[in-house]
């Protein structure tokens, strides 16, 4: 068990943006919610997943809908409280703790705001170890844990309990309801037992986010290279170093898709990296070789500050370092690759772990 306050929240927000691999939306408003909740209700209790009883009920909290709407019509803060009460009534059991569904963007911060508000412990585990755009893209799904019963709640006090036959229907009904409720709702999906979370969750994600954020912050103060520090923390690899020379974006079916071209500098001179993204960065390659591909993480960092750059924030001329981070082993299974591997996103390549690509390179 550990108590965290405002500084830790600031650090976690930076780490979450990095593990969000370009997507997940701006964690800014989520961070402010957490900071305000700490000011008003006190600090947050973090629990290791091993500290949770096997039969305890744990429930994540996240948002659904358009991030743009949430940035204008910010939450009340009580939405998830109401959602949790309804879930408890339905399941006949108290919720023991909450946890983040993903690392990255606003969803990584919402459980922290809720934890402070309710004095409810937050478990240091998530279902992705990074960010992904779709409902079934969680390690819980790989182990057959259901997203439902799920609860949606708006700031007006409306809540809705969903029992569905599969994830496709969950997504369909929840999205339609979200639009009626004003375009952005708070949700709790994938509630589960402590045992489930121990078996299927990715442990220590908040700690990792905090350490990443802290090392970037301290690197600046101590005048050391923040990117080296980050690579040490995440067991990652520098893939490329260069300058953004072209960005080709289009919004399709709700996704921000596109390709960024990065022209090599220093030892990467004469090479061009192509970075393909759909909300998140999913594939990095040069003309000669594949460098890193989903579900391994690809983060783009500002070459000077080491701070992560989002897909919306990539601009021509930006000096950046592209790093690759091995994903959690759960994603490297057959079902994992089927769910979030390159072919699911429409890229015609086989998944090869980043550490192998870095070692030998896969020539085209």
């Amino acid at each position, binding site marked *: 068990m550990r108590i965290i306050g405002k500084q830790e929240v600031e650090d976690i927000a930076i780490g979450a943006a990095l593990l969000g691999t370009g997507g997940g939306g701006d964690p800014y*408003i989520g961070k402010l919610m957490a900071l305000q909740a700490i000011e008003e209700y006190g600090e947050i209790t973090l629990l290791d997943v091993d500290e949770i009883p096997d039969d305890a009920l744990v429930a994540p909290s996240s948002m659904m809908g358009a991030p743009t709407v949430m940035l204008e*019509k910010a939450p*009340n803060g009580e939405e998830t409280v109401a959602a949790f009460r309804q879930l408890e009534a339905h399941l006949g059991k108290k919720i023991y703790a909450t946890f983040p569904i993903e690392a990255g963007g606003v969803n990584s911060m919402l459980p922290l*705001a809720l934890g402070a508000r309710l004095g409810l412990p937050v478990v240091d585990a998530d279902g992705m170890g990074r960010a992904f755009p779709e409902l079934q893209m969680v390690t819980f799904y790989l182990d057959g844990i259901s997203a439902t019963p799920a609860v949606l709640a708006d*700031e007006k006090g409306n809540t809705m309990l969903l029992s569905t036959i599969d994830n496709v229907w969950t997504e369909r009904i929840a999205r339609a309801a979200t639009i009626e409720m004003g375009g952005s709702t708070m949700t709790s999906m994938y509630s589960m037992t402590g045992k489930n979370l121990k078996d299927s969750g990715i442990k220590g994600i908040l700690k990792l986010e905090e350490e990443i954020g802290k090392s970037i912050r301290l690197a600046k103060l101590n005048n050391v290279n923040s990117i080296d520090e980050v690579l040490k923390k995440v067991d990652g690899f520098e893939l490329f170093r260069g300058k953004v020379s072209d960005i080709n974006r289009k919004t399709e079916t709700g996704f921000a898709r596109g390709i960024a071209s990065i022209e090599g500098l220093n030892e990467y001179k004469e090479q061009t990296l192509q970075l393909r993204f759909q909300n998140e960065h999913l594939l990095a390659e040069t003309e000669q070789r594949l460098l890193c591909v989903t579900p391994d993480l690809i983060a783009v960092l500002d070459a000077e500050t080491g701070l992560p750059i989002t897909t919306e924030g990539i601009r021509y001329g930006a*000096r950046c370092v592209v790093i690759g981070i091995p994903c959690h082993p759960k994603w490297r299974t057959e079902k994992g690759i089927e769910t979030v591997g390159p072919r699911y996103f429409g890229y015609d390549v086989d998944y090869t772990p980043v550490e192998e690509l870095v070692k030998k390179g896969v020539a085209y």
Partner: protein
Amino acid sequence: MDTFRIGIDVGGTHTDAVLLDQNNKVLSETKSATTDDVATGIYTAMKKIIDDANVPREQIKYAMLGTTHCTNAIVERKRLNKIAIIRVGAPATLAVKPLIGVPDDLREAFGKYVYLVRGGHEFDGREIVALDEDHLYSIANEIKGKVDSIAITSVFSPVTQAHEQKANDIMKEILGEDIAISLSSEVGSVGLLERENATILNASVVNVAKSAADGFINALKSEGIHARVFFGQNDGTLMSVEYAVKYPIFTVACGPTNSLRGASYLSNLSDAIVVDVGGTTSDVGVLVQSFPRESSLAVEIGGARTNFRMPDLISIGLGGGTIIRIQDNGEFTIGPDSVGYQLQEKSMIFGGEMLTATDVAVALGKVDLGDASKVAHLDKAILRKVYVNMVELVEEAIDKMKTSSAPVPVVLVGGGNVLLPEELNGVSEVLRPAHSGVANAIGSAISQVSGQIEKIFVLDEVGREKALELAKSQAMTEAINAGADPEDLVIVDVEDVPLAYMPGNATRIRVKAAGALAREKDKVIK
């Protein structure tokens, strides 16, 4: 009858002024020191250009002022209004209250009268809940006599202003017509906290803006000039003095904008990169269709995050007064500190002790300034390396601002522009037009008047054509209200961005219209 106009730009170090004829020919120009009270510096510069130009005073018809009054007040937290902050949007938004995320001293200055009222709208214009008018009446009675300016922000007011307008009416009903009220829908776009912050800052500088305007008008009058007065704003266009005292926040970045606009006019280029070399820093900006390209990222003012119209700039720590330090082993550093406005006393070519960027350029024969013999003893090989490094700093900043790798023309302006060479990497042509030292004051004098709107339209309901038309006509109305000639208006910018994860093809449309100033006689006839 010939008419003349005055353009003044107040910067951190210098107050620049020009006097132009009706064909925008420069008749006189000056650079004088910015004074602590700002007004004295303006008066000195203005008097000098009027005396130098020697034109009939009654024929000076327009006076344009670009000023840092409001910026300074915010940064220094001085002379700010006593304000109340009203947010209409509860029960939504309570998880992030007003002022969360702004620096503590601003929270303290503004945090005394903060209210959250039930109301606001959804993205599609439905009410979240009905507006709590009783609450607004009780707030008005509570703040009576305690504040002189009010910031009102309602959720999704860029989509519909109804609740902000109603709140405005209730405040005026109880507090009288003279109370200053800033409505967020007039200030910024979608993004509650950023728009609210901008509205709060706006409310806090209405007095500063008013006294700046009064001071300027009185200074003109005391010189026997009865000109129409305009303020330069961030987007490179003018606003009437009446509008400026209501929405002074739009003046905070007018300085760099004026130099971009002036550079465009002087070089006769509509698309180019502009490098404004000052005493301490150089600002690099981009001209797109004669206007500054605006930043898409959140802009902080006085530490508060805002989201409104600001030029996209990179500032680098290289100016005429930048201090160069060379060690015994030949290693060197460039800045970031500078002798600033004391170049004439502290740099070596003027008999001082400090080696500055200007000294390096003089020693290498790039610039003829001061006494070159005072830097003749320096090791030219090292200075050459320093100079190459200085130029690379600028080239890198230019490259960052480009949107493609193709070479572009660069216009050099500002007092320190002589530092830079005739050729730059990645640049098709380096231009250094006449009067480029006072480009900012010229930019201020030649500005057009604009109007802008930004709204979310549900295209499945209204249709794209109709939505664009609606947006354009609203932008033109805004421009005419701000003082533009209806005959001369053109749409200068249209941008539509589809919103992710939204139904009905919801799209944010932004349109800007701009045109020449409406002349006096037009007003009389109409």
